């Protein structure tokens, strides 16, 4: 091969790679949009499901999904901020820093079904908590923790040392420096991480299907020790009845709504990130 043909071969390879990626994404979105839109109606998103989901709407699933991830976010966010601050500001030893990375990436790498089994054994079997959406929130909070921690850590750690020194030199102590100088400058980074975590958590099925959800006959929960139904577990249940065209139609509709929610969280993360970057450039 000549130099010139190597050059064009490499360019074609890159083009093909990117086309394969975008092609898959567009195909996936296309199929879900085309099949999902006919299922969507005001009635579909404002009524409860019946007959194992093949009839009625997905109101309770939407409410259940949002409830479970929002509570997960509330539990996870302060812990993630604390961990990120500790890792960036209090861990001075290089060995410990490395270990903290191993732990955070390790937590991130645990397969979601393992979280589900862990939750089942700890909360349901050992602690006898029963099937509860709140337990699902706890498990999802643990799953979101590494994402929010790492994003927050990166945004705290990227603040130049001179800001810390300037603040300390003015007689602020470490706590004041963290809360008055570092956190305000890294807060939008933390929020970005939160929304990335939310986008991931709302689509999770395996960690919550044993411990937090019921597949049919669920009402809105009146306490924390009750199950909910969520969009991903509802889609799973409907997919198991795929021979029934009405159930399949509802599965497409629910998938479409789920994708919309994921996109909502992801684009919010992107917008905040972009705002933060343009703010930094000022």
């Amino acid at each position: 091969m000549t130099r010139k043909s190597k050059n064009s071969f490499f360019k074609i390879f890159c083009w093909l790679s990117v086309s394969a990626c975008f092609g898959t994404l567009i195909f996936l979105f296309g199929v879900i949009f085309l099949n999902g839109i006919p299922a969507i109606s005001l009635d579909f998103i404002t009524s409860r499901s019946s007959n194992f989901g093949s009839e009625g709407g997905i109101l309770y699933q939407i409410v259940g999904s949002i409830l479970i991830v929002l509570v997960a976010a509330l539990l996870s966010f302060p812990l993630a901020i604390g961990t990120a601050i500790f890792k960036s500001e209090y861990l001075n030893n290089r060995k410990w820093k490395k270990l903290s990375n191993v732990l955070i990436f390790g937590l991130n790498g645990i397969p979601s079904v393992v979280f589900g089994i862990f939750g089942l054994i700890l909360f349901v079997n050992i602690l006898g908590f029963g099937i509860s959406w709140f337990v699902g929130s706890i498990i999802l909070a643990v799953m979101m923790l590494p994402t929010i921690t790492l994003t927050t850590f990166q945004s705290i750690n990227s603040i130049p040392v001179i800001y810390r020194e300037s603040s300390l030199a003015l007689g602020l102590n470490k706590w004041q420096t963290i809360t008055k100088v570092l956190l305000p400058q890294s807060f939008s980074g933390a929020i970005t991480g939160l929304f990335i975590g939310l986008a991931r958590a709302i689509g999770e099925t395996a960690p919550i299907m044993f411990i937090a959800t019921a597949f049919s006959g669920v009402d809105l929960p009146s306490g924390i020790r009750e199950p909910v139904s969520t969009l991903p577990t509802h889609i799973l249940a409907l997919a198991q009845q795929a021979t029934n065209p009405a159930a399949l139609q509802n599965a497409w509709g629910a998938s479409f709504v789920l994708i919309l929610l994921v996109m909502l969280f992801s684009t919010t993360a992107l917008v905040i990130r972009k705002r933060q970057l343009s703010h930094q450039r000022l």
Partner: protein
Amino acid sequence: MKNSSSLKIIHSKADKQSDSIINTEGFNVWINDAHILEDINITIPENKITCIVGPSGGGKSTLVRSFNRINDDIEGLKIQGSVRFNDSDVYDQDIDTALLRSKIGMVFQKPCVFPKSISENVLFGLQYQKKLSDIDRLEIVEENLKAVSLWKEVSHRLNNPANSLSIGQQQRLCIARTLAVKPQVILMDEPTSSLDPVSGRAVEETILKLKENYTLVFVTHNIRQAERIADHLVFLCDGKIIEQGPVNKLFQNAENSRTREYLKNEFCDC
């Protein structure tokens, strides 16, 4: 050995001239295995400008950064000997470093304003020490901006973001912010070296004005600048004090040949 004996003579002369505010005795600093400062005995006279000069990498910054313990968080830092400020040991275990730093302020090489308004920057250190009424705040902002000759330039836009100022103005704002905390000593680590010559001169003039009320310790590698502003000069090379004393004496009649060589030709083979 010859150096240390000459050092002692100068040391006692400095003591006679004025009261000292910071003293070090046998002060050593290591960072990991590098011996950054070796057996430093230094006297900083009160209400004077002390310039620390010497080639880069000689430990000038490490020395001033040891006075307010801003170096504390550096990994592998080890110190020996004493630094005394107003007769209390700076490295005493019980010392409140935040309080120490409000007494020994610091201005850095690169101006670093907080992403807040001009007046909030002036008040930044002070507002966490005591409650301020709105009138107090206005007075403090005006007083300190006037002290650094920035008031006329910014009085009409105190609520604008501080990073809208020019880099030289930002550095003067950093000085104003340090003054607002009312320190006794202000450490300045090459505060003009990242500025253009005109802004640099403006900062120099500000510093000369501050001499009446504050003790200033000024690190520079610019010998002409040291000659213009210093009362007391310390020549630091390769982590050791070669000579210290009144600025005129060192420039006209230094005892050590290396000091003479450095102040004349900016060259040092230590």
